[in-house]
């Protein structure tokens, strides 16, 4: 799907056409297409095929759709539902468990979970397993690992030598509107922004993009697996790629799959190391698998 020589991929062309890329990336794609005849031809072909498909689909299936509307039938059924005691009142929803509001079930489930958790933590071997219980793959203050449905990771077509020629990971923050969109996607509109880094899942220094699919709000300090620790991993992977000890695709894949697991794999440590970069030496690298 990706094209060599810095060409934009079919996927990015389509997303630009459909308004699914960030404004910045859309501008970059359009600028590239404007001066690249091969990409322009691909864009025209994709746009034309999409338009043809939509037109033919609507014409075909609209011919199958019956004109006699079933609106009256629906109205009768809805009126019947409405007249059934005019629906449940707020009081009835409390009294009748079958029609209780969703949040009432959620509260009950949360209470049950709390009781079970307390019981679990007071088991004799709770101390030994405490690290498992508190492993912060997500916590109340935010997602340490991104939601794969919202942030699967996104990369630009780039080679390892281009990555290394560009220098180390001096990462630019995404524009503020994009950051706000990321908080919104994660349902964290009211979260204090200064406590989070809207971080790239795959760092731009390893080919990641500013696409919203590559961004998530990562807490700075509320857990040991925080944004600073991830920065250590990014620096380390960059040096491994540029040192010829790791290929770029593997580095991108490992970051996108589970960066905490990647950290453990490449640092040989189940805990974040102290932030002294001189601990990070190339000879430490011998992946477990």
């Amino acid at each position, binding site marked *: *799907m990706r094209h060599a020589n810095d060409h934009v*991929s*079919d*996927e990015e*062309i*389509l*997303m630009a056409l*459909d*308004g*699914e890329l960030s404004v910045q990336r859309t501008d970059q794609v359009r600028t590239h297409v404007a001066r690249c005849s091969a990409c322009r031809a*691909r864009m025209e*072909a*994709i746009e*034309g*095929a*999409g338009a*043809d*498909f*939509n037109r*033919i*689909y*609507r*014409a*075909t*299936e*609209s*011919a*199958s*759709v*019956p004109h006699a*509307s*079933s*609106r009256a*039938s*629906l*109205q009768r*059924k*809805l*009126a019947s*539902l*409405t007249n059934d005691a*005019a*629906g*449940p009142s*707020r009081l009835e*929803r409390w009294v009748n468990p079958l*029609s209780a*509001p*969703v949040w009432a079930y959620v509260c009950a489930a949360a209470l049950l979970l709390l009781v079970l958790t307390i019981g679990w933590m007071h088991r004799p071997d709770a101390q030994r397993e405490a690290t498992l219980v508190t492993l912060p793959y997500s916590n109340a203050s935010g997602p340490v690992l991104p939601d*794969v*449905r*919202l942030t*699967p*990771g*996104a990369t630009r077509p780039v080679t390892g030598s281009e990555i290394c020629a560009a220098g180390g990971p001096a990462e630019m923050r995404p524009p503020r509107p994009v950051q706000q969109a990321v908080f919104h996607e994660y349902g964290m509109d009211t979260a204090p922004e200064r406590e989070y880094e809207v971080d790239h899942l795959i760092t731009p220094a390893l080919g990641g993009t500013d696409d919203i*699919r590559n961004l998530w709000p990562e807490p700075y300090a509320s857990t040991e697996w925080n944004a600073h620790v991830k920065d250590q991993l990014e620096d380390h992977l960059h040096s491994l790629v540029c040192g010829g000890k790791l290929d770029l695709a593997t580095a991108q894949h490992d970051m996108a799959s589970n960066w905490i697991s990647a950290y453990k794999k490449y640092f040989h440590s189940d805990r974040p190391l102290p932030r002294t970069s001189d601990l990070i030496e190339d000879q430490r690298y011998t992946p477990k698998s």
Partner: protein
Amino acid sequence: MADLMRDSAIGSALLGAVDGAPAADLSAREIEEEVILLFDEFREKLLRYTISLGIGVQDAEDVTQEVFLSLFRHLRLGRSRSNLRGWIFRVAHHLALKHRNSRQRQQARTAPDNFLIDAQADSAANPEEQLNDERRRRRLALVFLVLPERDRWCLLLRAEGLRYREISGVLGISLGAVSNSLARSLARLARADER
């Protein structure tokens, strides 16, 4: 594609419904009226989409009715109004597949055999243009029908004006899988179009 929805008054209401008044403050009568408005807006789209999933016209009508009865119950219980368009298509998709699976023993198919082929020719076009259009339609139909089912669904939902995030919600797949599927399918359709 998304213009289809943005230009619609109901679409605006849907897209802005996240911060709308809580359903608990609306009477059953008001919700009924709202559901009827949404039915008017989406009936044709849902019939077209569910028929294209491989169910008959009458089943598609039944599915569409059930979607809006479910929507009424959903809103009456004060449940989320976030992205009702995605909710409507998701429920329709699952109900249609349920219908299709229950009938597959008698009539196994995953898309109508005449899908995309029976489009009405543009009456304003001259005979040569109509013939070319017919050929192109058949080429696209042949490519479409051999696509994996999930790729077909992505194309259909895009054609109905859904954003990638909504398609991802309807089909329960990642956003990356949606864009990847669409790019792959449209590239194949484009190659067919060139022939």
